[in-house]
């Protein structure tokens, strides 16, 4: 019998799992809060790492980091295990489910049958919660879906042992002990400190706002360097990383704005509300980039719209983010 587990749909899988697990253990935390405390926001452009032969651009921190940071910043004890052997991994899952403990899993999207086929790519850092078993299937709270789903055992075993980049190796995690009360304010500040210094204080050209500028420079050169067809494929890939399911829109910028809004209430400081509004405007700027990029992909860009114009939109995003994260960094480090 599945235990009662409150499934709430969220924009991003890992912050959603974190929020739902904490809520189950008696500490309701919104997804946006989990995303902010876990310092989920980032920008990174790594042209030498290829995904489907296309350069990696990321709008979020490394998979696994949100859950790890949230639990450690709030003093929550967790247990994490990974496995070499699939049957041992499934047996361990069965034991915990039988004990009524909801378990977080890292899985490969390609093997999850309930996913819309068009989204089934080899992406191995998808998080979900197993909260029960019925016959030969598991009851799953997959945070990016509106309702709980069911997944046959064989498929889930396959997804837990997906191969390739970020292979999950059967990774599972659960909460073992909660603190008496959650002290949100210092955790929020730590999360903001981390994101703002990654975005503007890392003197490395591929990370943070510097990374956005490097991407802008690369985008400008794509048509000449790669030819029209490949340039468009590269552009479409960036748009997918920014807007595909799991981002909440605008490359996670709107989730972060929601977090800043909530943070202003917890901290009782209206200045964070102002920064939240600016973050929303930045999310809209990113969406403008996706719209203009999509016009290129369709071949409907006007004659005056070139890849340089796309690069300029990116530079505008970088300018606004530099200003915002500098202000945020100054505010939180005072």
């Amino acid at each position, binding site marked *: 019998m599945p235990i009662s587990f409150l499934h709430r749909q969220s924009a991003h899988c890992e912050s959603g799992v974190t929020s739902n697990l904490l809520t189950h253990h008696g500490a309701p935390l919104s997804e946006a809060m989990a995303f902010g405390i876990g310092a989920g926001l980032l920008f990174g452009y790594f042209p030498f790492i290829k995904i489907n032969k296309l350069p990696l651009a990321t709008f979020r921190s490394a998979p696994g980091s949100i859950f790890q940071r949230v639990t450690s910043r709030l003093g929550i004890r967790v247990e994490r295990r990974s496995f070499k052997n699939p049957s041992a991994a499934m047996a361990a899952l069965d034991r915990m489910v039988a004990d009524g403990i909801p378990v977080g899993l890292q899985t490969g999207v390609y093997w999850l049958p309930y996913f819309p086929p068009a989204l089934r790519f080899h992406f191995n850092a998808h998080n979900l919660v197993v909260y029960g078993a019925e016959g030969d299937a598991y009851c799953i709270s997959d945070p990016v879906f509106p309702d709980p789903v069911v997944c046959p055992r064989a498929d889930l075993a396959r997804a837990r042992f997906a191969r390739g980049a970020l292979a999950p190796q059967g990774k599972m995690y659960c909460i073992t002990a909660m603190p008496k009360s959650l002290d949100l304010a210092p955790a929020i500040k730590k999360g903001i400190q981390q994101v703002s210094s990654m975005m503007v204080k890392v003197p490395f050209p591929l990370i943070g706002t510097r990374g956005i500028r490097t991407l802008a420079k690369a985008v400008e050169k794509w048509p000449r360097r790669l030819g029209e067809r490949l340039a468009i494929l590269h552009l479409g890939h960036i*748009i997918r990383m920014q807007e595909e399911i799991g981002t909440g*829109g*605008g490359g996670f910028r709107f989730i972060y704005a*929601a977090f800043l809004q909530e943070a202003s209430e917890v901290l009782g400081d209206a200045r964070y509300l102002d920064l939240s509004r600016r973050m929303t405007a930045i999310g809209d700027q990113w969406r403008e980039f996706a719209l203009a990029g*999509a016009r290129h*992909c*369709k071949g409907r860009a006007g004659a005056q719209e070139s890849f340089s114009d796309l690069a300029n939109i990116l530079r505008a995003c970088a300018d606004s983010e530099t200003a915002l994260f500098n202000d945020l960094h100054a505010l939180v480090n005072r």
Partner: protein
Amino acid sequence: MLKKEVPQDQEVLDGVSEVFYAVDENGRYVLAPSTGWEPANLANLQAWDAIRDELTGMVARIRANRLSPLAYHMAANQMDAKLLASYVGLFVWQVRRHLKPGPFSRLKPEMKKRYAEALLVTAAELEQLPADLSPTMLRIRKNRPAGKA
């Protein structure tokens, strides 16, 4: 993004709705369901087109007997030799060799079974090109009753 601007462009999500963060009329952030956004849909379809293009080129070479059908089933599952090798527990060079018609036809049935399991086909299907040459996942979608997740 305002709540009333949350896009509803259904195309790739098969009726599943995702969640966007948007601002309501009081300036508060709310979670708003969306059935998809056109630029994101377009980028997704474009990625599938690239996979289809790769498959088309491969089919021609398999029909000309320059590649084994394994090459098709590998690419239809969006895999390369390296990824497939890790699924079947072989070295990359072994998988590359099996992409040639000769070495593939000499494979033992057990080996073919391992490939077939990793590539979501039966051992018989592995030996030939399917009638429907779409990528594996999109083939699954077509065979499924509409509207069922």
